[in-house]
């Protein structure tokens, strides 16, 4: 009697072999991934991620991207694939608010510092003073040391 229990193998691959998994099942994600790429490589040859050097061929081989930037680089390939794979096309869940705020402040600070050095270079000292005050304020907001060391 126990042997009957042994025989029911329902791992993904056996289930597939037995035709158990529905077309909408998990294994389809991989299939779609391959299928949506198959006609592509010729038309996109030469495409390469600037950040990590990944090519569509490498993605096709591994099913994994090389770096976060790849999603921008290969957006024409990624978008239809994600459409087929997921419930929706746009993220509706959690957002890393503190990390985003940090990035925002960082970008603002960077812009202000550029403006400051330009103002100094062209001897607009009133503007420079204004930018300096703003920098102090933003650094405070970001929880950074009040004065830049430069």
């Amino acid at each position, binding site marked *: *009697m*126990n042997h*009957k*229990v*042994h025989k*029911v*193998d*329902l*791992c*993904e*691959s*056996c*289930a597939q072999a*037995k035709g*158990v*998994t*529905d077309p*909408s*099942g*998990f294994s389809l*994600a*991989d299939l779609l*991934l391959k299928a949506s790429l198959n006609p592509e490589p010729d038309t996109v040859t030469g495409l390469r991620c600037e*950040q*990590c050097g*990944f090519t569509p061929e490498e993605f096709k081989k*591994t*099913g*994994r*991207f*090389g*770096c*976060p930037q790849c*999603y921008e680089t290969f957006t024409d390939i*990624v978008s239809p*694939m*994600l459409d087929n*794979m*997921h*419930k*929706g*096309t*746009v*993220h*509706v*869940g*959690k*957002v*890393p*608010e*503190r*990390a*985003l705020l*940090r*990035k925002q402040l960082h970008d603002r600070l960077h812009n202000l510092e550029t403006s400051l050095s330009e103002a100094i270079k062209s001897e607009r000292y009133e503007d420079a003073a204004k930018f300096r005050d703003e920098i102090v304020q933003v650094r405070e907001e970001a929880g950074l040391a009040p004065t830049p060391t430069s």
Partner: protein
Amino acid sequence: MPLSIDNLISARAELTDNSSTKCPVVLMTRIRLARNLASHNFPGRAQAVERREVFAQCREAVMATKALKRGVSMAVNELEPLHRQVLVERHLISRELSNSSEGAGAIINKDQSVSVMINEEDHLRIQVLRNGLQLKRAWNAIDTLDTALEGTLDYAFSPRLGYITACPTNVGTGMRGSAMMHLPALVIAGQMEKVVRAVNQLGMVVRGLFGEGSDASGSMFQISNQTTLGESEVDIVKRLQNVLQSIVDHEMNARAKLLETNPAKLPDKIGRAYGVLKHGHIISSSEAMNLLSLVRLGVDLGYFPDELRTGIDRLFIEAQPGHISHRSGQKNLNSEQRDELRATHLREEFANFTTPGYASAVGEN
């Protein structure tokens, strides 16, 4: 003094020692989040130097969180193969991580309910385990931990695609919620195919408990969400909860039906399993899973006292090959030697086990 692997293995664990929940069908709930750092190549693409850099940065952030402040931190390439195997058998690290080297590692808390893998497929794989069916609690715990990490780490995140992951199947929430379910009656009644098909249609996936490529020993199945983009974490949890609840109901119905149509069949299977566990001298790991599965069903049916369920759940883990070898303290045991040691361990455990009372509450559930 930092916790060592051996201390960790012998410590009380959420999955094996926590008897607070009496859950007949769901053994455990797990949620994992995939996260990556914004300005680094994914682990599969990164060179050794970058992997080490990411490891150091993530490790520092993880060790600073409340959940893992006193956890064990380990680099995979410094772990003995046997310890890696034990961690895989406890669901604390993945097989993929256990096979990788440079810059790969994990941080695990003492009761082993939280583990964070670094440089697996993604820079971070955060995981929270709970015994029984506790999806919402698992989500709350992992949400808090993730928010703490995001306080210092710059995650790769796009407003449109959400959390960016190495594999496009995880993009969006990066979340996989799952439950390990014990479904012996559905297996015996030959209804698993039907269940798998129905679950697939609801956008969920069914696998054997011990991951890809292994069979469903012990009638254990892992059910998890398939998609991660276009649905919020809370909605995924809700939907998964509904699917799991309906599988629990089906399993309970199948049990009632089996008892009704052939009242001697289940007690006979369970009694025989108990006999082999108590008196066997050679037991393979898949046989052990199947025998333990039947005795667990016996607990659910009231043939054994409820408290024994926790002990059986512990044995599901301890009967696996890595645990048997580790317990013996001998390296390089072959499978025949392990089968004997496994039987000895099970005999010792079952010597103290209550004799079943088959007249007990049938259909009480």
